[in-house]
C-alpha cells in the first residue's frame, strides 16, 4: 500500500518562559491509504501536537516545528503557502476533537456549520450545500436531519454534537481523518456508537484514519497499526496484534498491564489490586475480603429537583433524579454504581451526605438515621462519610498550600491539637505515598494523580467509615489510574474502609467492586454481587451496557450489530407525575433485578 502521510524525523519545540522544550523528539511514522493508525500515549506525550502539526495548526508563537518533514500525498506541507494549506484543511485532511461540547460554534445552526465547509471547498451555492449538509447529518445518523439542521449546538446532546463534528470532517471526503480522543468525553454507550460510526464511514469512503487515544481498549477496537508514544518519542510501532500480543518495549508492557480488562476478574470472588510493571513479582496480591456487617443501609431513596418557570419562579415540573433506590454497603467492602451520565448515580452520592436534600427515603449509617439529623448533628455525621471528586484540578483550592488543605477538615472539627497536627498530616501524606516535602507545595505544582492523592488524604483525615468516590479516577491517565486504584484498595484493607464507587467505566468497576448496582433514569435496574452482574446480567439494560464496553483485545471487536441503544428519555415530569415504586425479583442470592418498567 502506498503511503499517504509520512512523517520524518519530526521535532517540535515549545517556547516557554524557562526556554525551549522539546515536545516531540525525532518522530517518524507513516500512514497508508485507508488504514487506521492509532497513536497511543498518556497526556503530554505529544500525540495531539503531532496531529496539529499535520494540520499545520500549531498555535503560533508557542509551538513550532523545528526540523523534520511532513509529507502528505508526496507534498511537503512546510513548503505550501497559507492559502494552499487552507485549501487542504477540511478538504483533504480533516479533524475531529475531544470536546464535542465546545468544538462547535454556539451561535450558528449545525446545518450552517456543516454546509459552510462544503461551500468553502466545493463551490456549491447555499441551497445545494444545505441539501448536502442534511444528507451528511443523515449519514451520521442524526434523527430527522432536515429539522435538526436548524438546531443550535446547545440543543443537541454530546453524542449528537460529536456526530455533527464527524459530518463536518467527512463532508469533503478527506483522504485522512484525524480523530483526537473523539470519545473520551462521552459515555461508554455513545462511545461505542461513535466508534462504530467512524468504522462504518471509513469502510464506505476509504478514508485513512489517524486515531489518537490514551485508551487501550479503544485501540484494540479500532486500530490496524499502532504507534506508542512516551514523552515526545515513539517507543514502539506495530500491527495491533503485535502490540497487544507481543509488546516489546517496557512502556508498552506497563501501559497494557495498567489497563483493567473487562472479564479478567471473572474467576475471582473478591477484588484485588492490579499487578503493575516494575513491582516485585513476589509481592502477593491479596484479595480484599471485607465483612458481612452492614455499614450503610439506604431504603427507598428519592431525590427530585424542582424546575422553576414562569414570571413568579414557581415550580412547574420536577427532575426525577433518583427514584426509589435501595442498597446496602458492608463494612470493608465496595459497592459500585454504574450507568450513563444523567442516570442519577452522582445524585445518589450527594443525597447520602445531604449535599442535595433527598425528597424521601431512609439512610442509615451504622445505626444513625442520616436524614432525620438536625444541622449540628449532620455536621458530626459528615465526618464519617467523605467524598473524592472527579476533577483533581478544580476540587483543590489553587491558592492554599497542600498542608492546609489536608488539615482543613481536622481544623474544622477541632479534632487534633495543634502540636500533633504536623505529625498527623505527615502520616496522611505517607499513607497516600506522597513525600512529606510536598506539604508546603501548591496544587499547580502537582500532577493529576498526585492531586487526586491529596484529595484522598483530605478525605481520610477524619477517619471516615465510608468514602464516596465520584468518578474519582476517570480524569487520570491509565497508569496513574491504576496506581490510585491500588492505593484505594490498600487503604480499604488497612483501614477497613467502605467505598461507594461511582463510575461509568465498567472495567474499573469490575476490578474494585464487591457489589455492583446498575442505574438507568434514576432507578437501580439491577444490583448484586459483582460476579453475578458481569457473568449473568439479567436486565436488558445491563446486558446492552456490557455489550458496549470496548475490550482491550483486538480479537474481541464489537460490531455495530451489538448496539441497540435508545436515546435516554427525559427525567423531567410534570407535578402530577407519581412514579410507581421499584419492585425487584431475586434471581439468585442477593442478585436483584427490577421488574417495574423503568423506561428502557
Amino acid at each position, binding site marked *: 500500500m502506498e503511503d499517504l502521510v509520512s512523517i520524518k524525523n519530526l521535532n517540535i519545540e515549545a517556547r516557554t518562559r524557562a526556554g525551549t522544550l522539546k515536545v516531540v523528539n525525532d518522530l517518524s511514522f507513516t500512514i497508508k491509504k485507508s488504514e487506521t493508525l492509532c497513536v497511543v500515549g498518556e497526556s503530554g506525550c505529544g500525540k495531539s501536537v503531532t496531529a496539529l502539526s499535520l*494540520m499545520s495548526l500549531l498555535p503560533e508563537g508557542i509551538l513550532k516545528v523545528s526540523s523534520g518533514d511532513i509529507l502528505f500525498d508526496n507534498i511537503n506541507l512546510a513548503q505550501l503557502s497559507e492559502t494552499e494549506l487552507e485549501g*487542504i*484543511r*477540511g478538504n483533504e485532511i480533516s479533524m475531529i476533537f475531544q470536546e464535542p461540547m465546545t*468544538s462547535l*460554534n454556539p*451561535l450558528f445552526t449545525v446545518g450552517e456549520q456543516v454546509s459552510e465547509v462544503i461551500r468553502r471547498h466545493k463551490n456549491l451555492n447555499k441551497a445545494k450545500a444545505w441539501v448536502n449538509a442534511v444528507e451528511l447529518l443523515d449519514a451520521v445518523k442524526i434523527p430527522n436531519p432536515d429539522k435538526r439542521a436548524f438546531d443550535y449546538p*446547545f440543543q443537541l446532546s454530546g453524542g449528537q454534537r460529536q456526530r455533527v463534528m464527524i459530518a463536518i470532517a467527512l463532508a469533503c471526503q478527506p483522504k485522512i481523518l484525524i480523530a483526537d480522543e473523539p470519545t473520551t468525553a462521552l459515555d461508554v454507550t455513545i462511545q461505542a456508537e461513535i466508534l462504530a460510526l467512524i468504522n462504518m464511514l471509513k469502510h464506505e469512503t476509504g478514508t485513512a484514519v489517524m486515531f489518537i487515544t490514551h485508551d487501550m481498549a479503544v485501540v484494540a477496537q479500532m486500530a490496524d497499526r499502532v504507534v506508542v508514544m512516551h514523552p515526545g518519542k515513539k517507543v514502539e510501532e506495530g500491527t495491533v496484534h503485535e502490540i497487544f500480543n507481543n509488546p516489546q518495549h517496557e512502556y508498552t508492557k506497563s501501559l497494557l498491564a495498567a489497563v483493567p480488562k473487562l472479564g479478567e476478574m471473572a474467576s475471582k470472588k473478591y477484588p484485588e489490586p492490579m499487578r503493575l510493571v516494575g513491582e516485585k513479582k513476589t509481592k502477593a496480591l491479596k484479595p480484599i475480603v471485607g465483612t458481612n456487617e452492614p455499614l450503610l443501609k439506604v431504603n427507598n431513596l428519592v431525590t427530585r429537583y424542582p424546575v422553576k418557570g414562569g414570571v413568579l419562579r414557581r415550580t412547574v415540573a420536577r427532575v426525577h433524579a433518583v427514584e426509589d433506590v435501595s442498597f446496602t454497603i458492608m463494612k470493608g467492602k465496595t459497592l459500585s454504581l454504574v450507568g450513563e451520565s444523567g442516570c442519577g448515580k452522582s445524585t445518589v452520592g450527594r443525597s447520602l451526605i445531604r449535599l442535595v436534600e433527598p425528597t424521601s427515603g431512609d439512610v442509615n449509617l451504622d445505626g444513625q438515621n442520616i436524614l432525620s439529623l438536625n444541622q449540628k448533628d449532620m455536621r458530626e455525621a459528615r465526618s464519617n462519610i467523605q467524598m473524592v471528586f472527579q476533577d483533581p484540578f478544580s476540587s483543590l483550592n489553587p491558592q492554599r498550600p497542600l498542608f492546609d488543605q489536608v488539615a482543613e477538615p481536622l481544623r474544622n472539627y477541632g479534632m487534633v491539637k495543634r502540636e500533633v497536627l504536623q505529625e498527623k498530616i505527615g502520616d496522611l501524606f505517607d499513607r497516600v505515598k506522597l513525600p512529606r516535602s510536598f506539604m508546603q507545595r501548591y496544587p499547580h505544582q502537582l500532577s493529576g494523580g498526585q492531586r487526586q492523592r491529596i484529595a484522598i488524604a483530605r478525605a481520610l483525615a477524619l477517619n471516615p467509615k465510608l468514602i464516596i468516590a465520584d468518578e474519582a479516577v476517570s480524569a487520570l491517565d491509565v497508569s496513574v489510574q491504576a496506581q490510585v486504584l491500588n492505593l484505594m484498595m490498600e487503604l480499604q484493607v488497612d483501614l477497613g474502609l467502605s467505598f461507594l464507587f461511582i463510575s461509568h467505566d465498567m472495567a474499573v468497576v469490575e476490578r474494585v467492586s464487591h457489589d455492583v448496582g446498575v442505574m438507568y433514569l434514576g432507578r437501580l435496574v439491577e444490583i448484586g454481587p459483582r460476579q453475578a452482574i458481569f457473568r449473568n446480567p439479567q436486565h436488558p439494560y445491563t446486558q446492552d451496557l456490557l455489550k458496549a464496553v470496548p475490550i482491550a483485545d483486538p480479537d474481541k471487536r464489537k460490531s455495530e450489530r451489538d448496539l441497540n441503544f435508545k436515546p435516554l428519555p427525559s427525567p423531567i415530569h410534570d407535578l402530577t407525575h407519581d412514579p410507581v415504586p421499584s419492585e425487584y425479583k431475586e434471581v439468585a442470592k442477593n442478585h436483584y433485578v427490577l421488574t417495574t418498567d423503568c423506561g428502557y
Partner: protein
Amino acid sequence: MLFVLLVVVVLNFLMLHLAPGDIADTIAQTMGGADEQDMAELRQQYGLDQPFFIQLFNYVIRVALLDFGHSHFYNLPVFDLIMERFPATLLLVFSAQILSLFVGILLGVYAAQNPNGLSSLFVNMFSLFGYAAPVFWTGILLLIAFSLHIPIFPVSGMRDITIETDNFFVHFFDVLRHLFLPMITLASIFFAYYSRLCRASMLEVLGADFVRTAKAKGLSKKDVLLKHALKNSLSPVITFAGLSFSAVVSGAILVETVYSWPGLGTLAFNSIISRDTPVLLGILIFSTLMVTVGNLLTDLTLKALDPRIKI
C-alpha cells in the same frame, strides 16, 4: 418598563420637591422682591399650596396624559419645548454610541490579532487616553483646535442659518458637519471602553475550541476572525454598551453645553438655573425613556446574537 417609568416619575418629583425654594421664589427674585400676599397668590396660581400628595397625584395623572405642564421661563408647553430639542439629543446620542461601538470593536479586533505586538500597545495607549480625559476637556481642546487652527468643522450650533436653499441634502450635510465634533467628543470616552473590552473578549474567544474547528475546516483567516470569533465576542461589548447608555446620555448634556448643541442638555442646564421645575421633570422623564428603550434594544440585540438567551 411602565413600572420603571412610574417609579422614576415619582422619585423625580420627590427629589425636586425636597430641594429648598420653588418657582414663586424665582419669580419674586426676578421681580425684585414680593410681599407675603403676592407670594401666597403665586403659590396658589401654580398649585403649590396644596398638600404634597395631592400635588404628586395630580402630577402623575397629568404625565400619564402626556401633559408635562407649562414652562414658567419660556412660557411654552413643556412637551413642545422638549419635542423641539429631543431630536437633536437623540441624533447626538445615537450617532456617538454607534460610532464608539464601531470604532471600539474595530480597534479591539485589530489589537486581539497580535496581543503582544505594537498594534495592541497602540490601542491600549489610545484607550487609556480616552478614558483618562474628561469629556469637557476633550471637547474644549477640539473646539480650540477646530476654531482657531483647522477651521474645517463648525464648532457651535446645529445648523448654518445663512443657507438659503430648500434642498434637503444641503441641510442634511450641514447638520452632519455640525454633528462631527460633538459626536467625536462624546464617543471618545466610550470607544476607549469598548476597544479594551472587545480586545479582551476576542482574545478569550480566539482560544476557544470552535475557533480551532473553524481553522481546521480550512476557512480563511478573515472568515475565522470576522465570522466565527467576532460574533461570539460581541455579547460582553453589547451588554456594556447597554449599561453605559445612561452615561452617554449624561455625557451628552456636557457636550451639548460645550458646543451649544440645541438639545435637551442645554435646555436642562438653563432650566436648572431658572428653577423651571416642570421642564426639568419633563427632561428627566425623556432621558429615562431613552435609557429604558436603549436597554430594551440591548436585550433584543443580545437575543438576536445568541440563540441561547431567552427573554
